[in-house]
């Protein structure tokens, strides 16, 4: 079993050749190389997990799941896209495909649904706590908002990742923006 010793995080902007060598080593079974890759990218993966899941414990589980899948699929990275892009895509797929993002454990009260139709809110506070506000959104609306407004995917990419239509993705984004504005007001 792996004797774990924490490895310092290398620079996220490591040269491409270094990344290629690391991935090759990890793909060949070098767990130390994989730990270096993990420490390079865990912050980015965890940020997406946390915002998509809206729950720190679930985010930890999802982050681990992403890297377990990455270990299993390292050989499929051909280098045609940046490794960070490949990993990010894998992370989104894992997160969207995981039942904890849609299951009853996170199917908590969706308070934002109840305020639709209420009187128009006042202006949004300039110092908004968007992280906290995201945690109050219904799961689908939150996922679409994160993918669109934070991760920069367009409607077609979101629809493809979520296995839904462009119209549904747009509708969820509309809903998320509306609910966020009401929550933050």
């Amino acid at each position: 079993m792996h004797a774990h010793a924490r490895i310092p995080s290398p620079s996220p902007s490591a040269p491409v050749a270094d990344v290629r060598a690391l991935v090759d080593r990890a793909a060949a079974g070098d767990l130390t190389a994989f730990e270096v890759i993990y420490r390079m990218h865990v912050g980015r993966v965890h940020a997406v997990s946390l915002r998509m899941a809206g729950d720190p414990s679930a985010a930890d589980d999802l982050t681990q799941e992403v890297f377990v899948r990455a270990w299993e699929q390292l050989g499929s990275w051909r280098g045609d896209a940046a490794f960070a892009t490949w990993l990010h895509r894998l992370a989104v797929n894992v997160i969207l495909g995981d039942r904890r993002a849609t299951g009853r454990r996170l199917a908590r009260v969706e308070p934002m649904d109840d305020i639709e139709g209420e009187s128009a809110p006042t202006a949004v506070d300039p110092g908004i706590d968007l992280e906290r506000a995201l945690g109050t959104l219904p799961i689908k609306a939150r996922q679409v908002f994160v993918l669109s407004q934070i991760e920069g995917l367009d409607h077609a990419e979101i629809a493809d990742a979520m296995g839904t239509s462009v119209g549904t993705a747009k509708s969820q984004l509309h809903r998320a923006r509306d609910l966020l504005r009401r929550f933050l007001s």
Partner: protein
Amino acid sequence: MKCEEAALILLDGDSEPALTAHLAGCAECRALADDLARIERAAADLPREVQPTRDLFPGIAARIRPRTSRWAPARWLVAAAMLVGVTSWTTARVLRPDPAPTAEIAWDAQMRAASAELRGALEARRADLDPATLATVEQNLAVIDDAIAETRAALDADPEDRRLRQALDRANEQKISLLRRALALDRSGLE
């Protein structure tokens, strides 16, 4: 343009000349546009990286399978199988009726088929294996099979429980891994 139409366009994140003209003369819609712009800026300003509050790598390292064909010590196999059993027993406490998702059922069926195929191959090679090694393998398979049976029963009652699903996936993976390793053995047995 009416305010309702303007609000729809704004919340969709779209823009068009008629909207611009409407905003110039409507303070309420302008306030909505300003709010949405603030939200967009806040989203853009969020940190791209958020470190987990604990080191997740030990958990990852414990879950990933070595790529080499070398056997882990028999003690590890027993411990792993026991862990699956304990985990499954623990997670099988919560029961709730619900139909199982089709994709999960299909995946479980694939895992069953893979296990059955490997099990058949192992039976065919039984005579080639060291008896002591074979006994260890059988002992661990029995523990894993018990864990799988318990977890499947719990999942029948609560198909949405992700921890049960994960426990079942891990148990299936361990069984397949164990069978593959056993098939790679010769009479020299476990290390």
